[in-house]
């Protein structure tokens, strides 16, 4: 297996005239969770969008298993086994839960394969079977998130990109959600995660990346990033004074 699954090399990207990412370099190893943290506006979500093709980098390259993704359409990127669950709820509210999940395997043309995957997904996510014929819009926020996870797994992706999956969820639901991310990881998926609940995310992440002003400030294991005093003080709930205080 290759040492790296995704390589970001000097990625510069943004919206309109301004650049949000100003030369991002780091690598995502296959398997496990890579968690990106950083303050608001540091470019976390933009970075994820460059991988899934929703934002095209102005400069730099993004390699997935050695192949450059820059310039490919979102559809072509999906075909390569990269699926993104966006920050906001992305289910089709007027469609049923089952229809939503089926759409996840939209690129797979063999109906038998789709049926098999659907059966597996129903076992992994019982809610998909239980609420199969209910409109997705009638589910709670947490349930919708689980169905989004279920949908993204229908394509049997190699890389799952999760953009703030815990947004708006209550603590109990949050626990279920992190459990599901672990389940996906244990099933062999590589997870690229941006998460506002950084402490919890870094605890389960194999790799942590700190983004600041569109550049990578620090990379290391999840625990290293979590226990880095400066990072902890700045981005994980500390204060500037704490960060500026001389280290013993």
């Amino acid at each position, binding site marked *: 297996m290759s040492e790296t699954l995704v390589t970001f090399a000097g990625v510069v990207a943004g919206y309109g005239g301004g650049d949000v990412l100003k030369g991002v370099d780091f690598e995502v190893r296959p398997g496990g969770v890579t968690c990106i943290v950083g303050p608001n506006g540091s470019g976390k979500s933009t970075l994820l969008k460059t991988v899934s093709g929703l934002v095209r980098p102005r400069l730099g390259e993004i390699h997935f298993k050695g192949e450059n993704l820059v310039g490919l359409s979102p559809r072509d990127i999906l075909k390569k086994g990269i699926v993104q669950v966006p920050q906001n709820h992305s289910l089709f509210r007027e469609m049923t839960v089952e229809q939503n999940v089926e759409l996840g395997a939209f690129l797979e043309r063999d109906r038998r394969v789709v049926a098999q995957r659907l059966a597996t997904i129903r076992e992994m996510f019982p809610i998909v079977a239980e609420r199969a014929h209910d409109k997705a819009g009638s589910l709670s926020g*947490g349930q919708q998130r689980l169905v989004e996870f279920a949908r993204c797994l229908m394509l049997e992706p190699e890389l799952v990109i999760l953009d703030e999956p815990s947004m708006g969820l209550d603590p109990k*639901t949050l626990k279920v959600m992190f459990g599901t991310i672990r389940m996906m990881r244990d099933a062999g998926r590589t997870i690229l995660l941006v998460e506002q609940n950084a402490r919890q995310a870094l605890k389960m992440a194999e790799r942590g990346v700190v983004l600041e002003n569109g550049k990578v400030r620090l990379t290391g294991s999840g625990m290293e990033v979590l226990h880095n005093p400066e990072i902890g003080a700045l981005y994980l709930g500390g204060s500037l004074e704490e960060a500026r205080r001389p280290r013993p």
Partner: protein
Amino acid sequence: MKLLSKNLGWVVFFAALALFPLVVTNPFYTSIGVYALLFMASATSWNMFSGYSGYIALGSAVFFGVGAYTEALLALHWHVPANGNLFWLVPLGGIIATAFAVPIGWISLRVRRHTFVVITIAVFFIFQLSAINFSFTGGSSGLALPYITWSAADFNNPFYYAGLILVVFITLVSAFVRRSRFGLQLLAIRDDEDRAMGLGVQVTAIKITGFTMSAFAIGCAGAIYALFQGQIYPQFVFDPTFDVSVALMVFLGGIGTLAGPLLGALVLESAQQYLTATYSNNSLYLLLFGGLFLIVIMFMPQGVVPFVRDKLTKRTDLERAAVAANDVSSPSPVAPSTPTEVTA
């Protein structure tokens, strides 16, 4: 057998339609039936694209007119004898309308919803003005088709059954589309086009295909209409109220449903024809339409079919809940496993 019992309502509905001219032989009513069937086919076809994709097309009269003119022009230029052979030209009306739909869809579906509506209206007026001004269409005098000399008593029946075949055909196609992968993509576009694109749906291709498919039955309906009328005029086959009527029929019955357009067209077109013929007033039906839509918008904004379906579902749910509450011996539900523990 299971399939039959599952679709018993549909079988009864179409059987009743098939028996109607045999039971009610008065040509006044069977002619209303012909118009109702043509609008049922058109509304179902319109709904197959606009209802499923959310793209409201207000230029479908173009396909109706193209179908009508195709029927008339081919009958005249090919010297088709004035009898049942004329019906063989009906599918050609649909095919030519479909052929026209490809470039129209290709141009108009480059833009999103509201702009699309405006473009379809503009395209409609281009076609209407063309039909009025070109010589091969007969200009404002229109075209006269070969004169059919069937007996007055049974004259309507062939048109009625041609219309019924078209309705059955397009209903089956619409049902198939609804349940197909293709239909799923149309529904996804209706809900959120950008998300659909993010999941790999080729939205432009899907929209053009849906738009083109919906033109066929409307073109066929136009061709049958031309035959039934015997004379076509540009202002009647390229009629702006056609699109408004079809859209209202679908909204009344329930947009995006299978039964809604059929119900809406059956009720509204029959009422319109009856009121126009009975009271010799072309505009009286507008009063009925206005009142009816006021009621629908106020009390059942999704349309009649979804409203009734929701009511029935709620009633069934309540009955089930009552049975469950009374059943003291039933075991308590097992606690769901991890990923379903999320509460509503």
